[in-house]
Structures are given as structure tokens and as C-alpha cells.
């Protein structure tokens, strides 16, 4: 499998600026490629369409069991959020519960919370997130973790 990737790498790079001079795609070249010419250090990322076994986010969240309480255990101060330019919570929350809104604020859904604590730990604004646990017996229920 690795070889296939290596070959694809080489062919995708042939003719490109840096390696042109080495002529490694030149069939008349008699010297073998030197290791340095391969330049592995310049990592090639796997294209997104090649991610294997892709899972839609809804299916991912659908695999987790929740017992939802009517009262939110985490609340946010949207005025503070509106003034926040980083909004790290949007990308870092593993359950994707922080959704940016058109008015520059955040829409927060507590229902599918993992109760992990990432949001308040990475939040730049002290007090923007009021964090606590759900009422006893409610919230996430991991079965295979």
C-alpha cells in the first residue's frame, strides 16, 4: 500500500518546480534517484476524498446515547460571544455544539454534550461559558468507551 502512495507521490510531483532539475521522471536518466531527491520531509497530505470509512457527523453523534434534561447545564453569555473574534469553541467542541450565528454570536445546544470541559478550558473570555454538570442521571451515557 505504501508503495502505491510513493509512486503516486512521485508521479504527482514529476514536472513540478523543485524536482524538475533532478529529472527523476526522465527515462533516459541512468542514475537512480538519490534519497534526498525524494524529499519526504515535505509531507504530502492525503486528499480529503481519500479518507477511508467516512462517517457523517449526524451518524457519529447518532452513535452516542443521551438522556436529555429539560434544563440546560451549560449556558453562554452571547453578548461576550459577539465580541469574540476567535470562537475556538466552534471548532474544538468534539460534539460540535457551538454554532456561529449570522449576528456574530453563538447558538449553543446542550442536548448532545459529552460533559468534557473543552469549551470552558479553551474559551478566551472568562465567564462567557457557565459550565456545570447535568442533573444526576441525565446527560451523556457512554457504553463502549
Amino acid at each position: 500500500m505504501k508503495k502505491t502512495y510513493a509512486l503516486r507521490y512521485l508521479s504527482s510531483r514529476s514536472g513540478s518546480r523543485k524536482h524538475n532539475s533532478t529529472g527523476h521522471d526522465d527515462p533516459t536518466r541512468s542514475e537512480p534517484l538519490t534519497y534526498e531527491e525524494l524529499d519526504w520531509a515535505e509531507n504530502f497530505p492525503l486528499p480529503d476524498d481519500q479518507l477511508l470509512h467516512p462517517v457523517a457527523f449526524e451518524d457519529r453523534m447518532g452513535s452516542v446515547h443521551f438522556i436529555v434534561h429539560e434544563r440546560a447545564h451549560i449556558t453562554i453569555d452571547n453578548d461576550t460571544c459577539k465580541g469574540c473574534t476567535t470562537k475556538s469553541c466552534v471548532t474544538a467542541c468534539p460534539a460540535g455544539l457551538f454554532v456561529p450565528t449570522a449576528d456574530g454570536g453563538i447558538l449553543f445546544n446542550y442536548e448532545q454534550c459529552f460533559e468534557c470541559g473543552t469549551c470552558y478550558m479553551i474559551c478566551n473570555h472568562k465567564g462567557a461559558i457557565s459550565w456545570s454538570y447535568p442533573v444526576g442521571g441525565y446527560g451523556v451515557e457512554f457504553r463502549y468507551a
Partner: protein
Amino acid sequence: MSVSTQAVVVGAGPAGSAAALVLARAGFEVVLLERGPYPGSKNVYGGVVYGRILDELIPQWWESAPIQRWITRRSTVVLTESQALSVDFRTQRWKGQPFNGATAYRSEFDQWLASQAEKDGAKLLCSTTAVGLIKEGGKVVGVRTDRPNGELYSKLVVACDGVNSLLAKEAGLYEDVDANNFTLGVKEVWYLGKKEIDNRFGLSMNEGVDIEILGGTNPIAGGGFIYTNLDTLAIGAVLRLTDLAASRKRPEEIVARLRSHPAIAPWFLGSHLVEYSAHLIPEGGYHSMPRLVTDGLLVAGDAAGMCLTTGIWLEGINYAIGSGAIAGKVAAAALARGDYSSSMLSKYETELHHSFVLGNHRRLRHLPHLVLSERLQSRYPQALCNVVESMFTVRDPLPKPRLSRLVRAELKKAGVRGTELLSDLLSILRDLQ
């Protein structure tokens, strides 16, 4: 209607159940609170329990513990985007008594451990969240729960309320919480079936494999893991919070990318996702721990930051059980003497220092920081894999490469200075010697 008891343990994870078990066995009334509907329902870990610490608490524990597979094979893998270097170790010694590591689901393992404490007389109270401490004259004298009239008075409280430990924070035991000392563990469990797992990983009966991965989470400092359960595979990434936030990447995408690595993807062919989960891990080690006691309160397990994350050793449950058991022992001694002051309870810290818990943490205190450094995370893996690849790439009619020249060239290419390498090697040797 408020209730009074001798000791309250908050959190029926491994630390809390161990503390409650020791207290109950010493003959004291102990209430073990759990906010989930059952112990383990809120908990996530990589996937391996090391049972040696249980030998004394629960003799022959392996006969009753809900184990998935016994680890007989341990691989350490260094990953770059396109390469993988494995050190693969197998031993038959770990497949029989007294065993070494095992995979288990927390929903089952934590319930089992709590039931052991119940057997000794601890009162387990599930679906009950401790929302705060009750204090009198600066001393902790119980916890407030979210049950109606849920004040629970006690002589002592043992806070085993996990990595976010709201109780230790409320008691002022954490001076400052630095997000750099925490990682987010993101985990997926995939169903594959026992036969396929046995075939793909070269296992038989209830043998299991533990694969620890360095690299593969770029540009976020962290690591990865793969564990075999009986008929499912667990795969996960551990991501430093500050890097995760700065990268603006989604955590589940990091895991998906790791799972798609050419060296990993074939293992997962034909499987389907059973559960996705995530949890914080206290990775800071010795330097990031809070104060461990105050009047009427002891802190143990993740709540005290006791996960050991030193690159080659990644352990948490045994440190939770170890610290919980010692907290229980000191709490029992305090109850026997009727002295709940922090000076009495400070025996807990002393005993931890004399045990493997803080003994190991203190000795290995420089490693957590080093493991998350950029050099360990990407520069060394890249250089190492390149050297190995070059050694095994046959380039006839050119002469075989000279190792010393190759190593120097690769380190240079990876941007590592000789002095940095030397200093990193010295700090590893200093901690491991």
C-alpha cells in the same frame, strides 16, 4: 431532611470506588456518589487497565473483572504522513495469571469496581450530582447534591469527581488551570467481529493488542492509540487543547485522518462505528497537580491530575485506584482518630510520595512536557522514519548508505540541532535512569 454519614466519596470511577472500598472495609459508613445512572456511564479512557494495583484490594480480581481481552502484544508506532515504524513486542507471560494489562469497557469495569466497594458495605448512590461543598468555619463538612433536600453531611469528603473537579476548584486547591496541561481524548469504537480482529492482529482466544502511536496528529501535539476489545476496535487521538483550538481543526477529523493512514486503514475495512466519545485528560503530570488536601477534604484520581502520560507509559486507572486507595486509608485513620484537619490529612500526600503514584510522577516529571514538544511530535518521527526508509531502500549499484552520515543529514533536514538532541536525550535518560 439532611443525612449525615462518616465519609462521602464523590464519583464512582476507579479512584472513588477504591477509596470507598478501603473505607468500608475499615468499618466506616461511606456514601459513594455517582452522577451517572450507573458507574462508568460518564467515563472514557484509551482502553487498557493495568491490574497489579488490584491484587491487594481484590485478590483474584481477574476471575470477576469484566475483561475484554488480555494484552499480550504491545506496539509502539511512529507515524509520519506516509511512513510507519513499529516496535512490536509480544509475550506469553501476560496471557496468564497474574496478567498485566487488559482491555475493558468503562461502563462494565467501573460498575464492577463499585460493586466490590458495595460488597464491603459502601452505599452507592447513582444519578446524584454533587453540586457543591458544605463548609463550616472553613472546614469541609459535606456536599450538597441535586436531590431534593440533598445536603449530605460527613466528617470527611473524598473528591474523585474527575478531570474537571469542580469540588477541588471550589475548595481552592487549584491555583490556576492551564489549558496547556490538558489534552482532549477523542475516541471511536468500531465493530469488526472477534474472528476478523483475531486474524488481522494475529491474536487467538482472548489475547489483545495495545498500539500506541507517536505522530499522526499534526499539527496538533498529542498521539494516538488503537486497542482490541473482544469484537470491537477502539481508535483514538489525544490532542493538546491549546493546539487544537489554534489549529481550528475538528477533533473527529483528526481521528478520521489517523484512521485513514495507509498503515492503519486496512485494519478497519468492513467495520462500522459503534460509538463516538470524548473526554479531557490531565496530562501535565507532577508539576500541574493541585494541593491534595484541605480541612475535611482529600482529592484523588483525575481530579488530582494523576494520569501518567510519559510517551512510553500511558496509564491512568491504576494511578486513580492507587491514589483512591491511599486516600481511603488516610481517611479511615483520620476517622479513627477523630482528626479531620489538613495536617492530619497531609499524611495522604506523604504516603502518595512513598507509593508508586507520586513516586513515579515525581521521577518522570520532565517527560510529559517533552512528549508534547514539537521535536518529539514531528521532527524526530520524520527523521527516524526517513533514516529507516533510507536504510531499507536498496539502491544498487550505489553503495549502502553510511548510518552516521544519514542520521546527521536527516536531523539537519528535520531542523534539529545537535545540542537539542543531546539535551532531549539527557532529559529522557535523567527521568528514566
